[in-house]
């Protein structure tokens, strides 16, 4: 009997592990393919069955030294960093207020209402607004557009972290001589530092990855990295090798940083609904 039970457990485990392997292959194969493509000479890129080839740095050299990609990376960095700084400055007090003062699940959820709408609905008013402000094809234009979705997400993200800080900490700080605001920035903010870091990374990734707004709002010098990546799809065809290099530059740093804060990312995404 025990033998059959153990056999069943082992078979079950084997099945689950096989599923995991399949899932991993599905997720990782595109990354591997992009990586391999970036190292292929341009004339071999379109031949998918060639696995054995001479490694070439042509694509990397071309993208890093002979294209506008470094400028686009810089643009994306500026947009991402400024967006995150503003989003945290606005989202932190907002999340704290949602956490500390009476807020129902419905009001909390309303923060995400904007996220429920397709970006296409937002883009027209945003475009017209930025046009009036002469901010089309500027980094500030993209930053303002990104703030429309990064602020709600960062706010939602941080509520859970503030919920977990005992109220007694700020009570204690106020008794110790702080005003409510001093208690917030001297005691509460340092306590939720891991959450702030995770929210910052998450907001940065959202901004860094956005192509929709950036594509419509930028054109020339203010192009961000995702728009530039799409630019490798030209009338003459897709420059797969260069595109692969740009994609790797876009995703690898983000993946590495996300890996180190994944615990906080998962916690924050729950918005206080999930405790770990």
């Amino acid at each position, binding site marked *: 009997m025990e033998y059959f039970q153990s056999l069943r457990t082992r078979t079950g485990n084997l099945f689950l592990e096989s599923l995991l392997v399949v899932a991993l292959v599905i997720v990782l194969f595109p990354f591997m393919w992009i990586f391999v493509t970036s190292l292929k000479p341009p004339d071999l890129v379109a031949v998918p069955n060639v696995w054995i080839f001479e490694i070439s740095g042509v694509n990397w050299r071309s993208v890093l030294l002979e294209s506008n990609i470094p400028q686009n990376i810089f643009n994306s960095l500026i947009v991402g960093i400024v967006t995150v700084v503003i989003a945290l400055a606005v989202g932190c007090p907002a999340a704290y207020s949602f956490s500390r003062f009476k807020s129902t699940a419905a009001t909390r959820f309303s923060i995400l209402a904007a996220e429920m709408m397709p970006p296409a609905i937002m883009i027209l008013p945003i475009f017209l607004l930025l046009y009036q402000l002469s901010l089309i094809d500027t980094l500030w234009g993209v930053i303002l557009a990104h703030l429309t979705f990064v602020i709600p997400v960062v706010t939602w993200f941080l509520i859970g972290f503030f919920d977990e800080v*005992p109220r*007694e900490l700020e*009570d*204690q700080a106020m*008794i*110790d*001589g702080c005003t409510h605001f001093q208690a917030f920035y001297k005691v509460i903010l340092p*306590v939720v*530092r891991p959450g702030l870091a995770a929210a910052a990374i998450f907001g940065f990734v959202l901004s860094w990855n956005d192509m929709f707004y950036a594509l419509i709002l930028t054109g020339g010098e203010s192009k961000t990295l995702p728009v530039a990546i799409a630019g490798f799809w030209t009338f003459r065809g897709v420059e797969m090798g260069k595109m692969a290099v740009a994609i790797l530059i876009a995703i690898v740093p983000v993946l590495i940083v996300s890996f180190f804060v994944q615990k906080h990312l998962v916690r924050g995404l729950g918005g206080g609904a999930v405790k770990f």
Partner: protein
Amino acid sequence: MPIIKLENIQKKFGQNTVLDGIDLVFGEGEFTVLVGPSGCGKTTLLRLIAGLEQVSGGKILIGDRDVTKLEPRERDIAMVFQNYALYPHMSVYENMGFGLKARGVDTGEIKRRVMQVAEMLGIEVLLNRKPKELSGGQQQRVAIGRAVVRDPSLFLFDEPLSNLDAKLRTEMRTELLKLHRELHATTVYVTHDQEEAMGMGDCIVVLNDGVIQQRGTPREIYFHPINLLVAGFIGSPSMNMVHGQISAGTFTSLDGVIVLETKGQPDGDVILGVRPEDIHRPINLADRQHGCALSCRADVIELLGARAIITLAMSGTELKAVFEERYLKDIVEGSPLTVVLDLDRLHFFDAATGQRLNETAQGGELDGGRGANG
């Protein structure tokens, strides 16, 4: 240390009245314990004194200062919370010095005072550690140290021992009392543990439903409870309550099992209160004559060490008694036995209002040595 006065304090949350007409004075250097069942309003009262909640009516005076509208930081009080509320990102030293720093005390003075208090509490070696590296007892000491270092007008404690295990709680209770004797600081201490209240307070305030039920010394509260609620809440095991009637100076329980003479109590429906330790095993005739003898059966015996709680069963009535273990050698569960109720220590309460009817003969004094169970 100034006198703290609460005048007609009211607190409402929406339509819900949490505290109603609280008038209290905390004397200079007095250790007052607010005690009562969960939800009675004791923590709310403490938070009102601290300024963490605003009163709906009434005044709070510290000395001559009306602090009712002042922010917590302007009240010159210190508070120790149930979960200690240590700042997790700061070291013990920074935690203790935070209040002084926030008040602009210079670094040298902060260091001198923190070191002095740390030495007093025996936590010098912990000063560089973070709160998460400390045990519950150590965290407790740091929280107390943080309060002491500020030398405030008033100390507030909100159930500070309830997160500790039983052994540590007893130790910390003693330490807190020693500290109080040393500092002679006016202290308000909230607990739901009546033993803690009895053991620590110079004065106990029993609260229920937002109203003060009784204020007095531990002896007054224990030996002369003013109503059924106080009588039932203070004492462990709780006071035995027996419904009955007084007619022509004789109390008869509803089931007719307990019949005893009263001293001038008016006729009517009453509740007889008997503390478990006022039920004795008679060892001589004098005991029988002094009290009211009852025949019963030892239903359950719970040995606590030197003492035991015995559940005594009579026909329709059940009483709990506390006997010393040495008087239990001849009893097993189910044994018939005779017990005596100490007539000088009975409590009578009006069955309708729950208010006390009689004066106890002992006037709150213990007469050690009487009876067989001590």
